[in-house]
């Protein structure tokens, strides 16, 4: 019996009492606290970060190093000068796009945990468009690659959204499974029919130079893809938080019955937001190819789709917090690499830290109760 959560619910009636019975069990929800003043809203994230830093200091000291100077060196490596900032940022570009993509779907109540698969599919689409079409005018070629990736990612996610909207197939399951299907299929393509014969491992042909973003700061790997990312982040923020469409999607996510009764097509909103989400994840994948690797290979994603899902959960599907969390994430990764260089503290330190921060942030964002809600939802689906 689930007395735990229910008792918690009793003890916190101010927040819960306004929620109708049906609403409470219906959906995991990113409940709004927008009314709070900014300063108060920043306290908890700041607290989490400070806790993370202290944890890092303890871990470094445990390895026998002077904690402050070592951590300082790591942060210096990540943010010390413009070039290091650029390097830190370069790695995160695809993650920015994928994270706001996942947020967008989550805002309309769709858990797109298929981000990883959509990233792979987008990367494959971009790699093929870059290698088999062209060479041509670079801007045009890049546009074509990103477009291909967006369409492929978008179609996959839209299909999964449609399964939910039309047939009630739960998207949590379908998107989860789609990851494995897509990744295996891409691996098959890269190792068999589309494999680059010149290479041993499973990679596709290298894309033409015209399908690669140019570096905007020498030897930092930071490319002009940065501008694409900025534009996409701004556009997604507008779409989700300010536009009429965003209103419909948010209402669908937060109060589906209100949406339906006031004439918003819940099905359309779910499919469209999934499609847009998938398109963004696809573009994230395309950036892996066109802004860094230059080809598709079987391990290209390195799990950034999962990172994107976590970041969307932690930031409660709001685009601005998501962008901030991705930045924090990039800095931690980079700093951990810096620490590894000046000490024998392994860069897995960042993993430990990231896990700790995720657990803390997850507790704050009520993710555990969200999963409880998910569980109830499955129970509900079964009941039908």
């Amino acid at each position, binding site marked *: 019996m689930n007395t735990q959560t229910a008792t918690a619910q009793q003890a916190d009636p*101010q927040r819960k009492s306004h929620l109708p019975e049906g609403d409470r069990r219906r959906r995991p929800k990113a409940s*709004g606290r*927008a009314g709070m003043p900014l300063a108060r809203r920043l306290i908890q994230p700041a607290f989490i970060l400070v806790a993370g830093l202290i944890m890092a200091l303890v871990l470094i000291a445990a390895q026998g190093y002077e904690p402050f100077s070592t951590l300082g060196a790591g942060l210096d490596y990540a943010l010390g000068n413009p070039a290091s900032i650029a390097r830190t940022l370069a790695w995160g570009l695809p993650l920015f796009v994928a994270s706001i993509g996942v947020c967008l779907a989550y805002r309309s109540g769709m858990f797109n945990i298929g981000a990883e698969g959509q990233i792979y599919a987008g990367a494959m689409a971009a790699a093929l468009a870059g290698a088999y079409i062209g060479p041509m005018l670079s801007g045009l070629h890049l546009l074509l690659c990103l477009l291909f990736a967006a369409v492929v990612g978008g179609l996959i996610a839209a299909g999964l959204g449609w399964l939910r909207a039309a047939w009630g197939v739960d998207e949590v399951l379908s998107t989860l499974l789609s990851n494995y299907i897509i990744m295996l299929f891409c691996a098959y393509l890269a190792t068999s029919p589309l494999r680059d014969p010149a290479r041993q491992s499973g990679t596709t042909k290298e894309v033409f130079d015209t399908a690669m973003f140019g570096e905007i700061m020498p030897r930092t790997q930071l490319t002009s893809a940065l501008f694409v990312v900025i534009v996409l982040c701004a556009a997604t923020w507008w779409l989700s938080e300010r536009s009429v*469409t965003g209103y419909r999607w948010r209402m669908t996510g937060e109060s589906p019955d209100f949406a339906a009764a006031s004439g918003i097509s819940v099905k359309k909103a779910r499919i469209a937001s999934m499609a847009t989400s998938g398109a963004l994840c696809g573009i994230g994948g395309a950036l892996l190819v066109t802004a860094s690797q230059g080809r598709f290979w079987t391990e290209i994603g390195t799990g950034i789709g999962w990172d994107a899902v976590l970041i969307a959960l932690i930031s409660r599907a709001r685009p601005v917090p998501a962008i901030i969390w991705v930045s924090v994430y990039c800095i931690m990764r980079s700093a951990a690499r810096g620490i590894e260089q000046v000490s024998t503290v392994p860069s897995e330190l960042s993993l430990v830290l990231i896990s700790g921060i995720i657990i803390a942030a997850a507790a704050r964002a009520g993710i555990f109760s969200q999963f409880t809600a998910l569980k109830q939802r499955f129970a509900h689906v079964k009941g039908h």
Partner: protein
Amino acid sequence: MSSNDQAAPSPVLELQGITKTFGPVVANENVNFDLYPGEIHALVGENGAGKTTLMRILFGMYRPNAGSIRLGGREVELKKPMDAIEHGIGMVHQHFMLVPSFSVLENITLGAEPGAGGLFDRGRAEEAARGPMERLGLALDPSTVTGSLNVATQQKLEITKVLYRGAKIIILDEPTAVLTPQETEELFVLLKKLAADGSSIIFISHKLREVFAVADRITVLRNGRTVSTTPARDLDASAVVAAMTGRSDVNLGRITRNAPEDDVVLSVSGLSTAKFEHDAALDSINFEVRAGEVVGIAGVEGNGQSALAETLIGTAAPLAGKIELAGTDLTRLAVSARRDLGLSYVPEDRHREGIPINGSVLEGLAAGTLRRHRGWNGLANAFPRALQAWGTDMISKYAIRTSGRNAKCHTLSGGNQQKIVMARELEEQPKCIVLAQPTRGVDLGAIEFLYDRIAEATARSCAVVLISADLDEILRLSDRVLVMYRGRMVAEETATETSREELGMHMTGAKALGTAA
């Protein structure tokens, strides 16, 4: 009525000088309230007057900014509901707080489970719950899943829960809003019995008929302040209304309206549906509503009224039959298309369907305007200046009490939430509006105001379908009354020529005509 007449010496509860603010909103200001053993004390006031806030303070959910709480003469500090419960205070909330997936027994004992070391002792729990259940005449299998019970039973369950925890002071916040007249009568019998046994009851309601039926004393709140505390027998309805609203001209009778026109606006024929989860299936429903006419649909809840409302607006699909609006067949159209053709809808469950409970007031008001954006307009700014200004206008036009258009809907009092829904739907200038329980939880003054807006709409030739569990409402507004029973229309009466009693007979199926209206 109760032991109050025997001049009970000292109050069990005294609230003195209670003040509570939410940011700029003053919800309670220097409120005084007391309660004697065995007394039923009614608390009345307009929407947003601060009734729920005061009760939440008493139940330890809010901390007051100033003031003191005395229980049995001793000053206490209630920091959380658990403190209040330990002092013998129980509260049945305006919106139930039962866990639908739990069993009856689990809900009753939740938070105070008998048993050692976190283990649930089922036997002892059943034993402990039996007493309160018997006192309320609640003959239920304790393992029944709560979500499957009807509202009246769920409410009894809430009261059982309060008794189980040993409450001597019972707070009931608008307990009758979701009950049928018969269920309300039963509840009153129960309350009087509890009072006779020595419990003290605080009763909140917007229906003066009910207040006078049970209360020993009546306290009126206005704008967060106590206006008066008076024995009920020294008062009449108009005095209470005047104290609540500060006006003496509130119309509590029938609303005067233009006579209906001749042309039919809404025509429903042979409408049938499958069984609904909490409602009967519609069984070949036929009726027409003419321009400017109000057709009341009465019936005991669960006889197909919700099914009818949902099928009319299009959130549920019929199995057979036809719905026509001014000659256009709506039966296969989506909700938005129906709305675009001039159909409007006030849903009965305002928290779920009426407003975005976690969204802003403006987001709730603007749904109609935002629905009309097509194509690329979907990427435009949802809330440009003009729309924001319109939102502010609506808040003042409909006298919605809120800190502003960006306030979250859940911070508004129940009646003010309902005004958001009514404002949005009436401002669409519909050809036909379906009103399901339009004034549930709304205060008398606001009801009059909303009725006037409905009368205005009918003067514009709007056809009105008024589905209501409140017979007074139906008799005050409608031209014709149809009665639903088990998914069929069993009777038709002219509103001015029928009575509560006659409608009540129809509603129980006693006088079924056997004709499908």
